[in-house]
């Protein structure tokens, strides 16, 4: 493959409209040779849309893309690959039911012979790339068997095999453990001697650690372009959100007075039949926030399901205010007073087609406050919704719009408002800020701390270490369905938690 080296990539006035939104508004960016440009912005700022245009997945409505000063048009991703641009997407573009080699082969015309696949050839190519960049992968493994970190390596190897000498990485660290993140950043730094890289993120610590220059996007516009070292993390955050950001912290460190949620030796099966929770024990106290850290897939989902009554408990007990709730129905658990902020907010947290006001009373429609016999008290439901909209700053055009049309942050506020309004004795919050932008995160953290001060016991399941360190009184680490260790928050550090999340218990 003979390709011209990309010395400079530049966009001029790139604009893209989707129905009802201006996703990218006249964006100018430029990346030079061996340079790492970070593109930073909150959700919906237009980062991914911009990159999809660079990859030929979307067509820009206006503006142009210049490579080495010449205007270029990419109609399909093949054109972009041919020019040497490769992208690692946030949601990995790997077919789970196929092997690593098959996934690489899919994009490599040269190894697709007539009626035959040149598996040996593609494996040699994979070996070559993986040894050159130090990215070990097993060509014969199926994608679904690999961990998220391994899948990411496969994505990188795949992109490089296709001949990319200009890499775009879209939020590459969002699913990695802290160690994996550090490794990736070191790797990308090494690779930048060979190629140019665009690194998309909203994790500012990574941005400052890695990039030479930064472009900040807000609501589809570039609000700042310049060298990374000129700005502090706080300044970048302020530019990104448009206001000062102060994430609240848990200041009080209370001792445990009375247990609220006591989980003992819980055993629960996963969808595939193995023990997802295998002797899991954890107790949360009144007015305490217990953080549960861990790499996704170590039993968190099954724990949340078991606590909310959605999954059968095979052994062990869950005592809530002294009462056994294991294997009760979700309705019985709701009525016992356990609040639940589910992981998947649009499918489990709300009914997307129902209006905002209906979603706000989903768990209480049978209560005398909101219904009389088979009839709903529509006035009361509306008043309730107006009140909650005010208190939780839910931004919606009207309370009658479908809840599914709101942004992620506002959907989460609807869920939180509904759960908190029920005055729960304990709240289980699963990845409550995943995918939300800083403003929404700030608000949700404040609400969780407020709950704590009112005496509610909170179990916070999260993979964001900063979130856990900011909010928790104690942090437990789950690994392969068990608690590996529990640390008081003031003793926990990112390093300690990272090692525990990887299954390594420190030798004292």
């Amino acid at each position, binding site marked *: 493959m003979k390709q011209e080296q990309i010395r400079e990539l530049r966009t001029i006035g790139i604009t893209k409209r*989707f129905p009802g939104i201006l996703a990218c508004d006249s964006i100018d960016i430029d990346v030079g040779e061996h340079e790492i440009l970070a593109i930073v912005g909150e959700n919906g700022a237009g980062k991914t*849309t911009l990159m999809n245009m660079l*990859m030929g*997945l*979307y067509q820009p409505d206006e503006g142009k893309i210049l490579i080495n000063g010449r205007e270029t048009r990419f109609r*399909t*991703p*093949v054109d972009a*690959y041919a020019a040497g641009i490769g*992208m690692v*997407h946030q*949601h*990995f*573009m*790997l*077919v*789970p*039911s*196929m092997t690593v080699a*098959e*996934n690489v*082969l*899919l*994009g490599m*015309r040269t190894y*697709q*012979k007539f*009626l*035959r*696949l040149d598996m040996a050839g593609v494996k040699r190519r994979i070996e070559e790339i993986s040894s050159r960049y130090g990215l070990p992968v097993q060509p014969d493994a199926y994608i*679904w068997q690999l961990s998220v970190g391994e899948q990411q390596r496969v994505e990188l190897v795949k992109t490089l095999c*296709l001949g990319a000498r200009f890499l775009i990485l879209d939020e590459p660290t969002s699913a990695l453990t802290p160690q994996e993140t550090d490794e990736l950043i070191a790797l990308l730094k090494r690779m930048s001697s060979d190629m140019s890289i665009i690194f998309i993120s909203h994790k500012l610590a990574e941005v400052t650690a890695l990039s030479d220059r930064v472009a900040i996007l807000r609501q589809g516009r570039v609000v700042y372009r310049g060298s990374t070292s000129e700005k502090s993390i706080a300044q970048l955050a302020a530019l990104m959100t448009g206001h000062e950001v102060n994430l609240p912290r848990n200041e009080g460190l209370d001792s445990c007075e009375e247990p609220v949620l006591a989980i003992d030796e819980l055993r629960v099966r996963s969808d*595939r039949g193995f023990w997802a929770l295998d002797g899991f024990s954890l107790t949360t106290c009144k007015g305490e926030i217990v953080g549960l850290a861990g790499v996704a897939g170590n039993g968190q989902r099954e724990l949340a399901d078991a606590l909310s009554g959605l999954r059968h408990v095979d052994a062990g007990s869950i005592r809530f205010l002294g009462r056994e709730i294991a294997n009760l129905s979700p309705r019985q658990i709701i009525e016992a007073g356990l609040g639940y902020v589910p992981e998947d907010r649009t499918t489990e947290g709300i009914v997307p087609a129902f209006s905002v006001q209906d979603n706000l009373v989903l768990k209480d429609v049978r209560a005398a406050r909101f219904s009389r016999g088979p009839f709903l008290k529509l006035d009361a439901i509306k008043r309730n919704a107006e009140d909650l909209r005010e208190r939780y700053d839910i931004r919606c055009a009207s309370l009658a719009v479908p809840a599914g049309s709101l942004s992620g942050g506002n959907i989460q506020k609807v869920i939180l408002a509904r759960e908190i309004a029920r005055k729960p004795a304990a709240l289980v919050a699963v990845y409550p800020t995943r995918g939300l932008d800083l403003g929404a995160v700030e608000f949700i953290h404040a609400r969780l701390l407020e709950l704590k001060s009112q005496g509610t016991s909170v179990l916070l399941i999260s993979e964001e270490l900063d979130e856990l360190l900011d909010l928790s009184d104690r942090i437990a680490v789950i690994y392969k369905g068990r608690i590996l260790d529990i640390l008081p928050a003031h003793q926990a550090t990112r390093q300690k938690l990272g090692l525990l999340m990887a299954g390594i218990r420190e030798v004292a």
Partner: protein
Amino acid sequence: MNIFAFITNVLSIGIPFSVSLLLASTGEMFNQRAGIFNLGCEGIMSMGAFLAFMAPHTLQGTALEPWANMLGILAAMLMGGLMGMLFALATVTFRAPQGIAGIGLHMLGWGVAGTLFRFFVGGVTGIPGLKPVFLGMNALAYLAFLLVPASWYILFKTPWGLKVRAVGTYPRAADTMGVNVARTRYQALIAGGVLAGLAGAYLSLGQAKMFADDIVAGRGFIAVALVYFGRWNPFLILGGSLLFSIAQSLQLAIQVQGIAFPYEFAVMLPYVLVILVLAFAGGSTVRGPAELGKPYNREKRV
């Protein structure tokens, strides 16, 4: 009653019965592997059966008579391919809901075949039919069985098979790798249509040696069910086709032998079997086409 003769009897009817099911469900497997389920399979089979019947019927006594069966089969395959393309136009290009479009295609094929048959032919007429070539079965039957390992090879060992599996499982990934999702889905639907047309041709030429409105008798829908039953794998689909058709010939044999068993239940047996197996075969789709039934739109935000 000789038990050995009974088993031979059941098999010798059951195996030829399985041919049209096997052809149709192999075709449907390619559709579904590419992410599209074609409920119109039944309609394509009706048209295939009709066209395959029409060729020998109209060419009787002409110079083309020796080629009549072959021409009929080709016409059936061509029509199958065209109907597959029509279905692709509706479900891939215009992203119509596949279930509804499939029912439409079924009604179209079934209705047109029946109407044309009444217009050109009218009543029941026999046709010469394909000659048995080996062990009492005709060439199409052997072709159908050879197709099983062949489609396994195509699906898992060729570039086209790789693309088909990719667009059915994760079209966006295939798209980012430069695979033309729409084109691949068109190709798979056309291939599936050709096989469904051939399945219809076998029914009229190889099995019934005549045509009637309801000659397909639900086999197109059974074929769709067999694809799920066979977890999108050609060999398991072969097993399913044999199981179903042997169950069917078993119920015939039970009736013929006069075994004291209510025949209504015997007739139900093959269908009950399919429902039972489908009910228990559920679960993991790790290896199946995860995006089955969903139209792909590149510019849709995820």
